[in-house]
């Protein structure tokens, strides 16, 4: 091999070696997520004498809430989320363990998101030490750790039906956050999709908060969750409607006003007045930080789908741990098979024009047809002959390939609303078992942050000095006719490597 011969080791001024800065601060333990599992991990570590940073993105900025990041808020947060002081109090108040951790010496960083985490591994030796990337609304920074505990929770699995792209269609985790953590839910009358434990608990939460629950809707032919909870809801006057699936959410200027349901096998539609449709069909462990770190992942339906490979709480990576829902969810009724039942029923009753990706406006038929986006104009005859099924015949179906072609999952919500349903659509359209569909890749930043926030405005001198637009190979850019001629040296002297094309 070329590189293995002995001899003096030269230096490439444009290589990344030595250019990435060390963090300003480091902790023995950094915990991402101050929910019950994360706050407890932080508290325990502090009681053991470790220096601990506990990071939580709540209260989330109104801009991200509007993007359905990190949860599927569906435009049903009140103006209260615009008041940072009140929101901080709410977040502190919602989990007493945060205050306990703070009392025990944990440094608590609220309203701070983790957008990436980096350790050296295959293809990467440039990180001077393990870091997690953090940001608030003004700036970003990195923080060193000896141990990283990811306690990022879970997010809602969203499914598309006509009208789901208007305010008032949201997820159960988001509803729980708006009710319990923020006290900032704008809805008054909600229909809940699902009847498993998640849906039932969501309904009881809503009732407790004084929200009118119009009905639970179940795609299967009977309620799925524990009978005791079903009985409590029915006793409270909340019907559990079975064998039905949303056809359309009708609405006006403020979003949803009516949910139209249809029997799974076809039949007369049913209309329910409501201002909110809450999807409580399933949760997806929030594994994005673990994924960008390179932790080994596996598909385990009993733990909620794609989850980290764990030994206890230890991931496959040295010093990286996962606790709480992101480590895997004890799914009861709401496993991937349940989601697929919903998806099949929605495809059965829904129009092909239903948008599966809101950000990029990709319809279900465009996804299944692997169509190019509308801004590229009409489909060519050749492209009309292509589909998910022709791709599946060419090789195992891969969501990343389909994202690139259709743009589904490529928008600012970072596929939070469409990742799982696109995978389910690939599964149903091509007959590929869900577990055989690769996980669409997660990419840093795992929160969508503005350029000016993410930017390193105090970049190190080595980075600045060694920056080249490409590889800094001056001979690369010499016009062909000048190669080997007298003008070659002149161009190299004048240009160096810095070519911007």
């Amino acid at each position, binding site marked *: 091999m070329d590189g293995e011969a002995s001899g003096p080791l030269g230096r490439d001024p444009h290589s*990344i070696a030595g250019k990435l800065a060390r963090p300003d601060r480091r902790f023995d333990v950094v915990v991402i997520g101050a929910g019950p599992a994360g706050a407890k991990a932080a508290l325990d570590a502090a009681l053991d004498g470790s220096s601990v940073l506990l990071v939580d993105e709540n209260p989330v900025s109104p801009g991200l809430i509007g993007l359905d990041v990190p949860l599927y808020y569906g435009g049903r947060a009140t103006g209260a989320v615009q008041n940072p002081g009140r929101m901080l109090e709410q977040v502190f108040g919602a989990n007493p363990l945060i205050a306990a951790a703070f009392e025990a010496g944990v440094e608590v960083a609220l309203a701070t998101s983790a957008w990436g985490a980096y350790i050296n591994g295959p293809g990467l030796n440039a990180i001077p030490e393990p870091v997690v990337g953090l940001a608030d609304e003004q700036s970003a920074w990195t923080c060193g750790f000896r141990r990283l505990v990811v306690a990022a929770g879970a997010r809602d699995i969203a499914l598309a039906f006509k009208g789901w792209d208007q305010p008032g269609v949201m997820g159960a985790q988001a509803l729980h956050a708006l009710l319990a953590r923020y006290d900032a839910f704008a809805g008054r009358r909600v229909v809940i999709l699902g009847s498993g434990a998640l849906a039932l608990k969501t309904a009881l939460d809503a009732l407790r908060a004084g929200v009118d629950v119009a009905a639970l809707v179940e795609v299967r032919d009977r309620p799925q969750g524990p009978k005791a909870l079903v009985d409590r809801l029915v006793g409270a006057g909340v019907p559990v409607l079975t064998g039905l699936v949303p056809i359309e959410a009708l609405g006006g200027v403020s979003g949803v006003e009516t949910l139209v349901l249809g029997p799974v096998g076809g039949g007369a539609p049913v209309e329910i007045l409501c201002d909110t449709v809450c999807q409580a069909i399933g949760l997806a462990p929030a594994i994005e930080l673990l994924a960008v770190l390179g932790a080994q992942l596996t598909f385990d339906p009993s733990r909620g789908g794609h989850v980290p490979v764990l030994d206890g709480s230890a991931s496959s990576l040295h010093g990286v741990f996962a606790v709480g829902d992101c480590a895997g969810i004890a799914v009861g009724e709401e496993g991937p098979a349940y989601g697929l039942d919903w998806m099949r029923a929605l495809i059965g009753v829904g129009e092909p024009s239903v948008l599966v990706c809101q950000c990029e406006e990709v319809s279900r038929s465009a996804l299944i047809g692997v169509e190019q986006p509308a801004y*590229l104009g009409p489909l060519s005859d050749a492209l009309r002959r292509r589909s998910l099924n022709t791709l599946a015949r060419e090789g195992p179906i891969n969501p990343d390939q389909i994202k690139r072609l259709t743009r589904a999952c490529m928008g600012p919500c970072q596929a939070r609303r469409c990742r799982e349903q696109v995978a389910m659509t690939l599964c149903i359209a091509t007959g590929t078992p869900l577990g055989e569909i690769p996980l669409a890749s997660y990419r840093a930043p795992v929160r969508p942050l503005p350029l000016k926030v993410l930017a*390193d405005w105090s970049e190190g001198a080595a980075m600045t000095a060694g920056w080249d637009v490409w590889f800094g190979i001056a001979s690369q850019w010499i016009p062909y006719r000048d190669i080997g001629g007298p003008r070659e040296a002149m161009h190299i002297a004048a240009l160096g490597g810095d070519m911007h094309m």
Partner: protein
Amino acid sequence: MQRPNGATVVVIGAGVTGLSSAWWLARSGLDVLVLDKGVVGWEASGRNGGGASHYHSPLFQEEQRLWPQMDALLGYATEYRRERIIMALTPEHLAHYRYMADMHRELGYRVDELDAQAIREAVPLAGDNALGGIHVFFGGHANPQRTVQAYAWALQDLGGRVLQHTAVTGVEMQGGRVRLIRTTRGDFGCDSLVIAAGPQTGLLLEPLGVHLPLAPARAEMIVTEPAPLMAVGGVDGNGLYGRQTLRGNLAYGGGPHEWIDVDAQGPEARPTTPLLRNLSRRLAELLPKAAHLRVIRSWAGVIENTPDGRPVIERLSHPENLVVATLSGVGFGLSPATGHAVRDLVIDGVCSFADIGKLSLARFADLPPDWRRSRGWVAEAMRAAPLGLPAEV
């Protein structure tokens, strides 16, 4: 004539170079089979900036002729857009770009020099920090991911085949010619072989006694949420290359690379680093009116580099039915013309539209064996975890 266990021409590598070559060969009526260890366009071909402005290349005239026709020729959209603007934020860069403009004019291309006012008119996202720049009326950019899939589909539409997830395990010779390609999915005979396997090209050639010096490296890019469309989407400067996609996203790269090693299976991973912060800063400086846009992804790709950064495109003499094509980091933009050149080399033995003699492997005959090491183009040994062993949580 299609053979049950082979093809007239086998192409190793389903990136833009291999697929364009296969498509050109299929256009000439040959039975072509493309083999790839993974998925179409999965490596650098689908991870680059989409630039198509490599004026220094002998293939550039042909590239320029072909790009405006590619959507029609392939039958699929490539998102090709003409022209580029290069903006300077410092007097040094401005002088640098003016030198480039002089080079372009000498080569016969139109370039306009823009003052600060003209830059702000031409680039709506530019700010008061722009001193000026150049507007080149050649070159352009396209969507790499769409284009590479378009080549594959267009090839199939002509009867060519692409076998994904099929790794080559050996190349067998007979009578001084390549005869059989061994893969993880069986053996394939061929009359001619094209190797366009990116960083793996050298590894595939080594057992045939052909030494192709290549150094692979990892480079990174970022992409933002969409901005309103600018008339010229190919706007570079401030140490960045990139483009505004037709969707409006700003996709930009630049800055330091990491030298790595790859084996026959390719890179084990394509991780990114906090370099995305340095890229974000430079993009916020280059296009201040886009500084509020959210970064929604970053990614890395692995690029092979020859010692002089120039391609190797050559039909070898031993074995004489083997064509090698490695583009050293500028493969995407040149791909329409590269495929044509490879087609010519396979069928006619010589490129019909340009002299490409200086892209021969022969130029590296005297390269010292430790060339990577002496330049520092080598992967750093894995550093030990610097802060000790973690305890249990």
